């Protein structure tokens, strides 16, 4: 409608148009809310979340060879690796591997530096914890990864 501006103002045309828009959006099926614990969001492939140390599925040993490259690559210096050579297999195996998640900025440089692809940043995102100490992940936590409690309504 091409009415003169004064008439548009007097008849509140623009306000009524706005009211029409909000009225039409009212169907609950239009809602795009994601009911989080019930529905889980789709995480994109390249998302960098909780770190994880891979275990060789055949032998059950850690794939980490304690080369210390991840610790060197980390700009925050939050990875500390200690290893020992296994006298039987002659392989170097991690004795303790700690990853301080509270200081991590998820740049992914550690995972890129890893020579055996043992360390990766997964798409898991539920990293909230009750204590600061718990943010320092040890080798066991890193290998197990996240085990979220399933939500039951």
């Amino acid at each position, binding site marked *: 409608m091409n009415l003169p501006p004064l008439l548009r103002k007097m008849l509140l045309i623009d*306000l009524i148009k*706005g*009211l029409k*828009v*909000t*009225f039409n*959006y*009212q*169907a*609950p099926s*239009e*809602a*795009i*809310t994601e*009911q989080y614990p019930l529905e889980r969001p789709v995480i994109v492939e390249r998302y960098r979340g909780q770190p994880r140390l891979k275990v060789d599925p055949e032998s059950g040993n850690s794939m980490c060879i304690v080369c210390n490259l991840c610790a060197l690559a980390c700009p925050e210096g939050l990875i500390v690796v200690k290893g020992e050579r296994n006298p039987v297999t002659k392989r170097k195996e991690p004795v303790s591997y700690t990853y301080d998640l509270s200081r991590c900025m998820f740049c992914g440089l550690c995972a890129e530096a890893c020579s055996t692809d043992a360390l990766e940043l997964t798409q898991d995102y539920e990293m909230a914890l009750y204590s600061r100490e718990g943010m320092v992940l040890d080798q066991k936590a890193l290998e197990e990864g996240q085990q979220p409690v399933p939500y*039951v*309504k």
Partner: protein
Amino acid sequence: MLDAITKYLGSNATPGEAGSMLWATIYILIITVGISLAVISMNWLERKILAHMQIRLGPMRVGPHGLLQPFADALKLLIKEDIIPENADKLVFWSAPVVVVMTAFTTFLVVPFGPTHAVTDMNIGILFMLGVSSLGVLGIIMAGWSSNSHYPLMGSLRSSAQMVSYEVAMGLAIVCAVLMTSLQTGTGTLSMIGIVQAQASQHTWFIFKFFPLGFLAFAIFAIAMVAETNRAPFDLPEAESELVAGFHTEYSGFRWSLFFLAEYAAMLAVSSIAVTLWLGGWMRPFPNWMSGSTWDLAFSFFPALTLFVLAGLCLLGTVRMPKIPQMKIQTAGLGIVGFLLGFVGLVLLVPAVRERVQDIYWFVVKVAFFMYLYIWYRGTFPRYRFDQLMKVGWKVLLPTGLAVLIATALWGLMPQLTSAILGVLQ
């Protein structure tokens, strides 16, 4: 005792007119409980409708579709710590919410839910409502001043400036409607019941009277009443993004919920003024077009039908509820509510009850429409700036109101005026 109760039921007057103290008390109790329930359901409806307008879901967790959310909120507010700021003026701080709630609820004394369903029929009904609801400003200023904090003070100043300036336009619009009551009978009335009866005797709702004058007066009132109750888009006093929460920033827990209750009660009160003055109060829609006893009978089934539809929705919800142990109590509760609603609907089908209740039903439906409008505005319009607000009030609504008032008076006097002019000419 029983005699006193039944004696009133036979009479065809409001409790105030019949001089029945007992029934007046019963009416007051019913209205108080009814308004509190309406406020509770408004709380849920507002969050839900607003959420849907903004493509969200709103409360979903407490009860089916968040139906029990208002009760959870009320419980939370009741057990919250009650803080009074250290340097606050304790007495004024304490009495401000009381004043606000009392003024908001007192206005309902004269609201006519039906020809006999009002606590009393005051002959200055509309004046009483306006006067008492204006007293609410006092409570707001008290709250803002006694908090001894700058945000509440500024909020209350804005609020009182706004309420006072919109009251002028509101008053002019109301005078238009009061003028219309005097037109055919010759004697105007300020009584709320009298105004509706005038619309009945003139066979028109005042919104359609002297088109477009009645409609213009109604539009002025409809805008002014939103400003009067401090709701969006005129919600400057409680602008969340500017003043934290306006005049009740320092209030917490139960005192805060009293302000909440008072705000919604005031919304209901001004909506019922609008319904009484322009939308024919308790009269059913289309009284002229669909006249006759058959239509009367058909329209009198509406209250029961509405309850049956609600009951049906509840039972449908019960059937569709997920069959898991955690939801057992909710499912049973919803089913019980469904059956209760159905039972009440059946009671409303009884002819004696039907005749007495349908007035209340139509009044409530019209008020509910206004409440929906409030939510709709809030979901749509951005907030006015303070100077824009004052401009709309003083430069647009006030002159229009004056013009409509004069035009209404002239139109009403048309027969006398023409005869006088003709007399002069001859």
